[in-house]
């Protein structure tokens, strides 16, 4: 009962956020006017942003959940395995080499995938991948690649700088709806797959030994889930660059509000993260319109205080 009511609230909030995201923008147009023929383009553009917001929010937050449980580390987030700097470096390099804009998402995707492969390879010890070595090599590769980005930007200046900002702080501006559709497949598939592992994630969050005692093939489950989160993250980077905080904060917020059972947590987090990203996007494009502030800045500025509030409040009620 308690859960059903909270889910209902989340659904209502999502519908509200979607309506809000469609009706507000840099240009003020009333909701009724939006549906008229003349404003179809604006509506379409905003619709793409809202859809992108749902995909990005759900994808990043569910990846965060899976990695936090699998690595048993509350600080785990989707970019932990070097995807962000890998994608950023590939995009910046592509800009410097004068590659056409159309191919930038592909470059970013490949960069993200390449960095995950390197991180995973480095973390292997005698055929086994331990959590500690995975996190460690993720951090090392991230730092190394980030320094390469700064190195390139210092050498090649402005054009690369602008591009880097876009990739490293994210935007929901969707240039191409076909790309959005293309990205939706792996993201939706990935989220569904992670949900199928909900009970495994519950068991693994008790510890690897506990999971083994419940008959879970821990090495394989870990491998599958890490690869799926990597696929989701790399796909999302193509359309929106890197949007921090969503994958870290929203899962924790939902755990504080609804508990840690992944069967509840995963769907609830999809809803909450969609709402969060749609609203952050709205702020990013309306606050100082027509200037658009990168959405990653907004997610961090809103997410941090909300999270601190919940954490303080949660401690009292526990």
């Amino acid at each position, binding site marked *: 009962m308690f859960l059903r009511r909270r889910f209902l609230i989340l659904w209502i909030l999502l519908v509200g956020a979607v309506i809000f995201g469609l009706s507000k923008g840099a240009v003020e147009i009333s909701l009724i006017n939006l549906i008229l023929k003349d404003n179809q383009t604006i509506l379409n553009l905003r619709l793409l942003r809202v859809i992108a917001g749902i995909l990005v929010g759900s994808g990043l937050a569910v990846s965060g959940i899976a990695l936090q449980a699998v690595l048993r580390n509350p600080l785990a987030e989707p970019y932990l395995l070097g995807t962000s700097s890998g994608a950023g470096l590939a995009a910046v390099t592509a800009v410097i080499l004068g590659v056409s804009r159309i191919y930038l998402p592909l470059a970013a995707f490949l960069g993200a995938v390449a960095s995950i492969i390197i991180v995973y390879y480095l973390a292997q010890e005698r055929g086994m991948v331990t959590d500690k070595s995975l996190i460690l090599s993720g951090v090392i590769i991230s730092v190394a690649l980030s320094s390469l980005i700064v190195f390139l930007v210092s050498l090649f200046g402005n054009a690369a700088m602008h591009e880097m900002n876009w990739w490293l702080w994210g935007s929901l501006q969707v240039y191409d709806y076909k790309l959005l559709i293309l990205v939706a497949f792996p993201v939706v598939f990935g989220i569904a797959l992670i949900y199928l592992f909900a009970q495994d994630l519950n068991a693994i969050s*008790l510890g690897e030994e506990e999971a083994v005692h*419940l*008959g879970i*093939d821990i090495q394989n489950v870990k491998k599958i889930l890490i690869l799926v989160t990597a696929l989701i993250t790399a796909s999302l980077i193509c359309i929106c660059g890197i949007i921090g905080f969503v994958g870290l904060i929203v899962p924790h917020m939902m755990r504080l509000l609804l*508990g840690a059972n992944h069967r509840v947590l995963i769907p609830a987090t999809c809803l909450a993260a969609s709402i969060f990203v749609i609203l952050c996007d709205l702020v990013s494009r309306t606050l100082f319109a027509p200037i658009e502030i990168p959405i990653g800045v907004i997610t961090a500025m809103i997410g941090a205080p909300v999270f601190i509030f919940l954490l303080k409040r949660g401690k009292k009620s526990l």
Partner: protein
Amino acid sequence: MSVLLKIENLRGGYDQQDVISGLSLSVNQGDFLVVIGPNGSGKTTLLRLATRVIPLRQGEIYYQGSNILRMHSKEFCRKVAFVAQDINPGFSLSVRELVLMGRIPHLKRLQHETKKDIEIVEEKLKLTDTFGLKDKRLDALSAGERQRVVIARALAQEPELLFLDEPTAHLDIGHQVQILDLLKKLNRINNLTIVMILHDLNLASAYANRVALLDKGEIFKEGSPAEVLTYQNIEKVYKTIVLVNNNSVTGRPNVVLVPGEKP
């Protein structure tokens, strides 16, 4: 009496070092076997090897005649369950959610728990006297309550064999007896075979029908409490002077420490 678990010439450990070397042991159906031994003698490692947490380096373990390494992991966990010293849920879960995990070995990936699974869970909660706690969060429980809940989860797997690694380590004597009485009841009435590590020799003596004394990764002596818990055996393995008399209540050996004496 049929053999449930047969361990033959087992060797295993961590990194380069073997903790268990050449150990053989049989567990019979209906046994209440308590494994004792000094720190580092390999008790926990033995349980980890027998529950497939760490790989064997040599030897074989058979469960009712089939090699446990060839059994499917879920099949194995429908027969054998494990209770650790204490669990540390990384994130906050309710008692009911935890005990429901015991049904994992019985479900396929796409399968959700049925009414029958829920009934089994509730039955095990009642059996361990934790039904009233079912909606509480694990971090709100006392150590004794938490241990009973973990046992309920192991029972929800409906195992034939239950391993326990010092289940009473963090409990006061009242709660120790409560847990061990519960296990004794499960052993007698539900015919659950139990293999348990204990540090307290007198608890081992009071509850076990068989005791295995481990030393340096091998079985030093195995048999009834009266056969194993002699002052000669204990002094030799634990390197400490003890006095063994008869417990007038249980009629079993009673180990008394002698402070300040070295053998």
